[in-house]
Each structure stands twice: as structure tokens, then as C-alpha cells.
């Protein structure tokens, strides 16, 4: 069973449906026992970093997600959920993340040329970094996934497993051991996205 962490952020209908579509049982939950007993954890998220980080802490989910991640359970953060896994965000101020993966979150506008539109919305190609990660075992380099974001992860050291090009190289996915993060939305990325979710659902087997 996959636990989709419910901390009052975002619409989880598509995420749950996409997991069901690939034959995975998924529960949207904030129940500690359900989360501890799940095989894998997904941390979703849309909206503003500060608000989401606060809700994650106030709901007790920050502590719990850290606990299960440190225990070695496969965890994947999606979009803002990925950014929350990092150490810090500079989205309108300076905010602490969970610090499970090295890196920080900064505006795309800092690196993309001035005529590039912000947010970065649409289908963009993945370029793998380093050895091809098992998360991508069912897809190939150049496959497109769906992005919607105005801030991106930087200084992730060798934890970056894929980037995408938008006038500059933007971090598309990170991994540190059992902890994964996707800046794009696999649940909105058609067949390629389903293959990424499927690979995640086989992690730790």
C-alpha cells in the first residue's frame, strides 16, 4: 500500500487515480499508523512553500515523514513535495525544508533568460545525470514530462538524477538512497509518468 500524505495541500484526486490505474492501492492519509505500515510514501504538494512547510509541521507530518524516510522506506516528493525534501527554500523569504536531500530552492528567473516565461509550464524533456537511476528504468532519455513551477532546486550536488533545459539546466529529479523527488508531475505526464510511478512502486522490493 502507498500512503499519500494528506496535510491539507493540493488536489490529490489525479495522483490517487494514477496509482490505481497502474494497479497500486493508495490511501490519502494523515494517520500515523497507516503511514508507518505503508510500503511506500508519496509527499505531494502545490502552492506556496511557506504555507505548505507550516502545514507539514503543524500536522505532525514533517516529523513522521522524516521518521519513515530515515527508516529506509521509499519516499517520493512531487513538485512542491520534492522541494520540501530539500534543506531550504528562498521562495519569498527563507524557509526551512525537511533536509532529507541536499539542496535549496530558488527562483527560475535567477537563471533563465529574461524572455523565458515564468512559471515554466508544459512538457519538457528529461536529461539523465550520472548513471541512469532505477526510477527511470522504463523510460528513455529525451522523454517528456509535465512541469508547472516558478522555483527550482539547486545545489543538490550529486543527488540530481535528471535535469531539463529551460534556457538553463533545471533540476527535474533528485535521489538520495530511498528518498526521491520529482519536480514534474508524473501523475500528469501520460504514459511516461505512469512508467516512472511504476518504477517507484517497485523500489525496495
Amino acid at each position, binding site marked *: 500500500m502507498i500512503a499519500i500524505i494528506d496535510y491539507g495541500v493540493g488536489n490529490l484526486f489525479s495522483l490517487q*487515480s494514477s496509482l490505481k490505474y497502474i494497479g497500486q492501492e493508495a490511501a490519502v492519509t494523515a494517520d500515523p499508523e497507516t503511514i508507518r505500515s505503508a510500503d511506500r510514501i508519496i509527499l505531494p504538494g502545490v*502552492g506556496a512553500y511557506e504555507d505548505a512547510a507550516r502545514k507539514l509541521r503543524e500536522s505532525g507530518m514533517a516529523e513522521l515523514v522524516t521518521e519513515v524516510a530515515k527508516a529506509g522506506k521509499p519516499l517520493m516528493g512531487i513538485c512542491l513535495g520534492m522541494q520540501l525534501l530539500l534543506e531550504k527554500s528562498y521562495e519569498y523569504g527563507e524557509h526551512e525544508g525537511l533536509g532529507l536531500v541536499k539542496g535549496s530552492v530558488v527562483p527560475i528567473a535567477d537563471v533563465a533568460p529574461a524572455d523565458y516565461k515564468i512559471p515554466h509550464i*508544459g*512538457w519538457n524533456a528529461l536529461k539523465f545525470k550520472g548513471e541512469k537511476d532505477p526510477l527511470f528504468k522504463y523510460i528513455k532519455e529525451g522523454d517528456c514530462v509535465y512541469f*508547472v513551477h516558478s522555483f527550482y532546486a539547486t545545489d543538490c550536488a550529486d543527488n540530481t538524477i535528471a535535469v531539463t533545459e529551460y534556457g538553463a539546466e533545471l533540476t527535474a529529479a533528485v535521489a538520495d538512497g530511498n528518498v526521491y523527488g520529482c519536480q514534474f508531475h508524473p501523475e500528469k505526464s*501520460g504514459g511516461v509518468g505512469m512508467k516512472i510511478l511504476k518504477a517507484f512502486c517497485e523500489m525496495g522490493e
Partner: protein
Amino acid sequence: MITKRIIPCLDVKDGRVVKGINFKGLGDVASPVDLAEFYTSTGADELVFYDITASSEGRKLFTEILTETAGRVFIPLTVGGGISTLEDFDRVLKCGADKVSVNSGAIRNPEIIGQAAKLYGDQCVVISVDIALVDGVYRVFSRGGRDNTGMEAIDWIKRCVADGAGEVVVNSIDTDGVKQGFDIPLLKEVCKAVNVPVIASGGAGCIQDFIDLFTEIPDIDAGLAASIFHFGEVAISDLKKAMTKAGIPAREI
């Protein structure tokens, strides 16, 4: 490099697609769910569901269809038609829509854009504008292109984007239905005026019209059409191949 999006638009009335015809291998051509799956499998980058029902019963059917589609199709879904309150936003987002397109509702109540953007994020709010050239000035029309509001179109679009609209759909009344190509001069004006994604709508009659659109306006993000896809005049897979061949970044399945 980010790819140029191709977006089929499905007009839905009482839970059925209004214009939908003759696809080989497609069971029920009037089923929005079947058509959505068909388009997704042939390379559509996004789908627009446009609710043209007026009755509350029809609206209920629409949300059921939307829920079913969102459970089977995993690409971005935009919903438009009859959106005028935050409750309307809430209703369709809960059913699995990713973005909500507002047109006449924003003309009647411009505050809706800022309110929705604050609540759901800019990326969720799409402003759709029906525009025609009247005595040399681009004007905004309401009620499905019937009434000239007298508003200057570029000013209106700039205002909506400043208020938080994250995307703009430009429907040219002058080219719509004529099938002689998109309204390039109008779209150029809009692209110059705003720095959010702009989606061209109205006028596509063949593959070359899309090639011309993306070649003549490198800043345009997407092309939207309805009948040429529904009537099978243009297959999205062929269109994507032609785009790649012309050097336009496209996502091929």
C-alpha cells in the same frame, strides 16, 4: 527544450460531446471519456472540456464525466464554460480538473481572477478571451462572441494577467470557423503584451496552419482546435510528426 502544446477542445452538452464523429477504433464517438482517451493515446498534450449545458442536471452530468475522465486520462485537464464563482472553480477542481478557464464570468466580475489565483495558484487560472477587430481596434466580446463589451482586448488581457491569470487563451472571432489559419497579427500583439503562456484558438484548418503559427510566432505556447480533430481532418499524431520535421519542438508518443 519545452515543447509546443497541441490541445483538442471538447464541447460537452448533457454529458456528450457535441461535435464528434467517425473515428476508426473508437466505440462511442460521443463519449467524452472515450474521446479523451483516444486523443491522449495519439499525442494530445492537454485537453479542454468545455461545458455548454445550461441546466443543473447537465452540469451534474458534466462533473461526473470529468471525474471519470480524470480517473483514466493522465494529462492536464482544463475546464471551461459557465465558470463565474469560486464555487464553480471548487466544483471542477474537486473532480480532477487542473486548470479552470474563465471568460464571460471574469467580464461580469473581474475580481474572480485575483481571488481564484490567490486560492488555487496562478497556474490554475486561465483567462479565455473572445476577440474581434472592430474599426481597427481589437475588442473583447462576451457571451460566446455575441456581445461587444467595448473593452480594448490587449488592455483587458494585461489586466487579467496582472491580477493572476497564469495562461491566456485567445479566441479570434474573425478567424474562427473559417479554417484559413490562426489570427497571426492578433496573437503577435498578445504575445508582445504578456509574459505568461499564450494559447492560440480559432482558424486552424490543416497541419500547415499550426506550422505557420509556431514558425511565425516563436513565443506562442500552444494551438487549440476542436472540429478539425473531431472530424478527423487532422490526426494529432500526423501533426506532431510534421512539427518535428519543421524543427518545432513537439512531444511525440
